[in-house]
């Protein structure tokens, strides 16, 4: 993301978090966040003004997105509150097809007059751009849904929880880490609410209310004598949930091999902060890894990022076609490989499903940002590449008639485009726990939680680090390792997948801010999996002295 796109808010020291802000994002009072502004019927009246305007100017298709995007950030370190910020961005984005060409315009003037002017601008832009157009845009048909609504299932709206409660929680987590000997702890709570009203010239009027939450911290431990330091992040996942994620229920706590506690559908931040301090100390004292080939046992809090980079991105059709060539890159999963219907992306155990519906996931919505009802579909089946991720103006290219429903825009002011759906590894069919999996490994490394990541522009060669590494010898965990990173080629790696644990071990971590496009836009996406085993992967030692 560009440094220029950030303003550093006053009152925060250097090295503190920079918050994304554009000229349309306003800092507001938290009480305003509970004020609904307009109801669906008022938004419909405004949307119809835009739809009628574009139609009268010759547009053959129009969609109107009236969006209100709310964010709350609570930021602390040790015993101090560093910042509390509530932001609101409210406006309309209008996209049209005129002369067979897309046009888009946006405005923060959400009035009858504003709708009309913005609609006129969108049509004018489409007509001007049509000079560059080689062939007209073709949209896959989608049903007209009439007036419908969707809301993230939640039992506690995070925006209704007093800010003081969040501050108290973060400071209590910090205190726990400090009590356990941490030198420093930085903690944050991020809440997102997207209130999106979509209307199209095809007769859909879709009102959606979407929530996401992301608690996080970094606990730092320093060995003063040697100068070594280690950071241990929170074992929380960003979720498409309300504040009930912070309940830390006993049934959501999972004891992993190696004596590590992790969390599923709710998170105990205070408890985890204590564990973080203890583990950071062990991370410093751990044995430096001997480089070589190991069987890797990868826990879901780690494996999600490997899935994101090596499966999620290369199956995006716009990358395959070259639309991202100048920035994020292209893809090794070219159309000819898909057309053979036998390109072995992975071993028989490897089944990937893309979806926008999984409850609690970051990608879950009722309808995407071009009014397509969300669904799930196979990407990799029994190891074979069977499909891509595509939207209405793309699916025709791969001979399909129905959009996959994965179109997204980060705000009303940005044009929507294809974004990654949740892409998840399906759990194994045989009963298998992580402990049983480890018992079968002779020489291996068990990795918990993601860290450093890097992959080439066509998604062949990758390198991943992690947070906790345990040495496996003859089926037993022998203690902690450090300085571990593994390198592989995506296709070879997924073909080395020997086992996947069963559904009892399935969890859905994810990324809150995945970047794509120029100018860049962010997207939130989850990647579910159970613990999986990969045989004979190249492990390097990353220790260096300067």
């Amino acid at each position: 993301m560009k440094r220029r796109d950030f303003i550093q808010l006053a009152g925060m020291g250097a090295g503190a978090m920079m918050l994304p802000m554009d000229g349309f994002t306003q800092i507001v009072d938290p009480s305003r966040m509970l004020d609904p502004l307009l109801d669906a019927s008022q938004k419909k009246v405004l949307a119809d003004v835009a739809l009628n305007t574009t139609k009268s100017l010759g547009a053959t298709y129009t969609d109107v997105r009236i969006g209100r995007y709310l964010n709350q950030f609570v930021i602390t370190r040790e015993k101090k509150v560093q910042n509390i910020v509530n932001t609101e961005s409210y406006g309309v984005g209008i996209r049209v097809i005129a002369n067979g060409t897309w046009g888009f315009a946006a405005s923060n003037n959400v009035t009858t007059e504003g709708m009309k002017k913005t609609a006129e601008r969108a049509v004018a832009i489409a007509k001007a751009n049509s000079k560059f157009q080689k062939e007209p845009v073709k949209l896959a048909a989608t049903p007209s849904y009439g007036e419908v609504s969707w809301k993230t299932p939640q039992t506690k709206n995070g925006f209704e929880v007093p800010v003081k409660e969040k501050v108290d929680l973060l400071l209590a987590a910090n205190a726990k880490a400090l009590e356990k000997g941490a030198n420093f702890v930085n903690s944050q709570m991020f809440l997102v609410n997207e209130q999106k009203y979509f209307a199209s010239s095809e007769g859909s009027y879709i009102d959606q209310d979407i929530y996401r939450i992301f608690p996080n911290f970094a606990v730092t431990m320093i060995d003063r004598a040697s100068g070594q330091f280690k950071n241990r992040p929170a074992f929380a996942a960003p979720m498409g949930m309300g504040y009930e994620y912070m309940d830390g229920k006993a049934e959501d706590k999972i004891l992993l091999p190696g004596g590590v506690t992790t969390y599923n559908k709710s998170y105990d931040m205070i408890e985890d902060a204590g564990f973080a301090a203890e583990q950071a100390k062990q991370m410093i004292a751990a044995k430096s890894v001997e480089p070589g080939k190991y069987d890797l046992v990868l826990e879901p809090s780690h494996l999600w990022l490997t899935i994101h980079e090596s499966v999620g991105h290369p199956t995006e059709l716009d990358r395959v076609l070259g639309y991202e060539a100048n920035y994020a890159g292209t893809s090794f999963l070219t159309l000819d490989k898909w057309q053979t219907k036998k390109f072995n992306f992975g071993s028989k155990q490897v089944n990937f499903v893309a979806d926008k519906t999984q409850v609690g996931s970051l990608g879950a919505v009722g309808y995407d940002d071009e009014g397509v009802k969300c669904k799930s579909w196979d990407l990799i089946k029994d190891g074979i590449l069977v499909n891509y991720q595509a939207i209405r103006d793309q699916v025709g290219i791969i001979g399909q008639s129905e959009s996959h429903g994965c179109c997204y825009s980060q705000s009303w002011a940005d044009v929507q485009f294809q974004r990654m759906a949740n892409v998840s590894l399906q759990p194994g069919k045989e009963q298998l726990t992580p402990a049983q999996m480890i018992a079968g490994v002779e020489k291996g490394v068990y990795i918990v939680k993601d860290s450093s990541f890097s992959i080439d522009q066509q998604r062949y060669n990758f390198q991943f680090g992690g947070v906790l590494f345990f040495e496996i010898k003859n089926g037993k965990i022998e203690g902690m390792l450090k300085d571990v990173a593994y390198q592989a080629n995506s296709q070879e790696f997924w073909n080395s997948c020997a086992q996947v644990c069963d559904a009892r071990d399935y969890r859905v971590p994810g990324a809150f801010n995945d970047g794509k496009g120029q100018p860049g836009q962010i997207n939130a996406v989850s990647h579910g999996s159970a613990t999986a085993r990969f045989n004979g992967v190249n492990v390097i030692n990353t220790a260096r002295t300067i």
Partner: protein
Amino acid sequence: MLILTKEEAQALMKKVLAFSKADECEVNLTGSNAGNVRYARNSVSTSGGISQMSLAVASAFGKKLGIATINELDDASLEKVVRRSEELAQLAPENPEFVSFLGPQKYAEPVTFIPATAAITPKLRADNVAASLKVARDAKAIAAGFLEDNSGFSAMMNSHGLFAYNTTTYTNFSITVRTEDGKGSGYATRGFNDVAKLDTKAATEIAIEKAVKSATAKAIEPGKYTVILEPAAAAVLLENIFFALDARQADEGRSFLSLPGGKTRQGEKLMDERVNIYSDPLNPELPTSTWTNDGRPQEKTTWIEKGVVKNLTFSRYWAEKKGVKGIPSPDAFIMEGGTKSVAELIKGTKKGILVTRLWYIRTVDPQSLLLTGLTRDGTFYIENGEIKYPIKNFRFNESPIIMLNNLEELGKVERTVSVESNTNYLLPPLKIRDFTFSSLSDAV
């Protein structure tokens, strides 16, 4: 046009401060006009334009701070935003790290605004893109590019009498060209304050040349090689040093600049003595703002001198706590170079690898600043002073600190853009021995 003159900005901000009832009040005002064109597969895919202005008011009561923003500038809105910031301050917990706003400061006159860039029209953007597309199509190559420009102003004023104003313009251009068979790929990037210096056709021709010459690359064994890093490749490694110069992190013991027992490496020779890195907001080739958004002046500063870490960056809070002046982080860095071109560096190389671009750079270990990433868009094997053949891309694992200890030669400085952070720098090409490539990549 949303660029307010100095006098207009001053008058508006005085009006805002007149509404204040807080112990201290500070106002930041920014406005800009921006435009961009994106293309791929030899055709324009999206284009956009955005004009915006935003006013941020920070009110403080003791150590309680509240910030509110607005983009309507009528009197009622201005009063409303001041009241809201005051209400938020009253609700906020005390921030022990709050530092009282600065008094009046002296700033050098900035040189960041070029009228020609501020006057860019949609037609000029379209012409620049058309010139790039034409040479790509003529070469039967496939182009994807992004052209953006921005002109704007920023101003700040506070209740202690501080006032600062600046205008700035810039344009950035990047282009990836692939051969039709997908076997070759080339890249070029350019950044300027003055659009007159931007030649999209020439940049695209370089990308085409790299695409054509990099096709049918051979695989060679990973290992330690002498490399020549073009400035665009050097930028994405060196900026990881620039971004990690924070004094607080170093003092706290969690930086590559930390030493055991709470000491830092400031004053220590950490790299080859030919390494000199500084910042200068008035450099005519890379001008930047002469003040920061907390009101501190930006002055010419030496960061690394003859390989010795001379200065670290400070927040105002940390500077106050440590009882030092506390230099802010600059907007751009400059590294001194030599006189040789990349071609001349190649000529003097017996065996080595020319790296034109590096990509997907991530920190592997913040303690040693070990980075990983890959070569991309044109990597070539050099033997006896000549480029022999294109080679397949490599992944590297290397620390820029170790790299700058293995310095062989510095080339001629040029302005370049980091593909990772979009920041512009003045950097030389670097010839480095024993650069660590750890595996091969099939990516083109």
